[in-house]
């Protein structure tokens, strides 16, 4: 149940996926609001600090997820997908995994090169040191641009990815979304299929 199997995702994959998804969507909203919406400057300062703490959380989870993706078994693609769709799916997933690492790393570079030199005080708990990078206005501007561009690129991929999931669920009515919602889903489905199978069902009879 924790691990993936050939037929579907286990709970580790599922919980990581949705936790990271929620955090990343929150960070995109937070990043946009704190930087683009005119808000109270004191609130803005706090939002920046929350953004960094939450961003480091995303980075930690994304690193675990990337590793998990490499070492863990990959389920078979859901039935009924063309080879092109399968390829689009797995490329999107690799890009998402890569951007979920690159975006917070670039954010860390912004905090590290900033001439403001504001410490990253993880949820007011402990200090996460700056990366060993020289502080200067040009370096900060550069990494801000990189962080921003990658963040909105990530948003575009997430939107594409989520719309694809919804399309599969509502238009194609396959189990692409369902199998990312519950580790039990495919097993239930399989046992339903099993009891419907006359041969196996027959065996079960006393």
């Amino acid at each position: 149940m924790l691990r993936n199997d050939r037929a579907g995702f286990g709970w580790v994959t599922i919980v990581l996926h949705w936790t990271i998804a929620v955090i990343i969507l929150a960070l995109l909203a937070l990043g946009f609001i704190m930087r683009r919406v005119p808000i109270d400057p004191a609130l803005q300062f706090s939002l920046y600090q929350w953004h960094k703490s939450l961003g480091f959380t995303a980075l930690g989870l994304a690193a675990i997820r990337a590793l998990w993706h490499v070492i863990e078994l990959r389920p078979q693609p859901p039935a009924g997908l063309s080879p092109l769709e399968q390829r689009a799916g797995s490329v999107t997933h690799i890009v998402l995994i890569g951007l979920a690492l690159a975006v917070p790393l670039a954010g860390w570079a912004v905090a590290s090169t900033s001439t403001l030199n504001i410490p990253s005080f993880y949820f007011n708990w402990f200090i996460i040191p700056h990366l060993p990078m020289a502080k200067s206005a040009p370096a900060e501007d550069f990494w801000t641009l990189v962080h921003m561009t990658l963040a909105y690129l990530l948003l575009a991929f997430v939107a594409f990815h989520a719309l694809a999931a919804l399309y599969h669920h509502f238009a194609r009515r396959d189990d692409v979304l369902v199998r990312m919602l519950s580790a039990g889903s495919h097993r239930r489905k399989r046992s339903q299929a099993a009891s419907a199978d006359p041969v196996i069902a027959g065996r079960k009879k006393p």
Partner: protein
Amino acid sequence: MTLRLQPPPRAIALAFLAVMPGASLTFAAAPDLADAAGNYGITSASRIHFTVAQTGGGGGIAGDFGKFSGSFRIDRNDVGRSTVEFTLYPASVKTGEKRVEDFLKSSAVFDTANYSTVTFRSTNVKQTGPDTAAVEGTLTARGTSRKERFSVTLLDWNRGSIAFNIRGNIHRSPYGMDVGTPIYSNVVEFDMNIKGQRR
């Protein structure tokens, strides 16, 4: 800033200070007490420096206020009856980083649009050593007035002017300026060199 006139009649240390033997070691040219008493205007050569420490060390925030005004009076007979009043214009804050300055002027900190000055008016002056004194008074910032304390050290004196170093630690939170804590300390450390020109 008690400066009780005591024998010997030649006062030694000065200004806001008591006359004590030994202070003459600090101030070679011991002025006559009567000479130091009087009214002074605070000159623009003064330096109003502050620092706010940051968690984990590092520079924190340090800066100076460029615009201020004030005056003080050294009482001829009783330093304890000396007075000082001081006005600071927080919009003149300089930190070497425009984003920090803008933030300090904003509604998050000084709110200079609504409160253009920070004022201090002494209520009590007390001598604490041959060339030191403690000044208590009312500090008003962002519409809040509170009693604060500064310690004063005499630096230099001549017939026309006088210089002090004044230090004090002010907590930001009572004035509604605790933004950024706990990353930045709640305490602002003031380190001021005040020059007075006799009026």
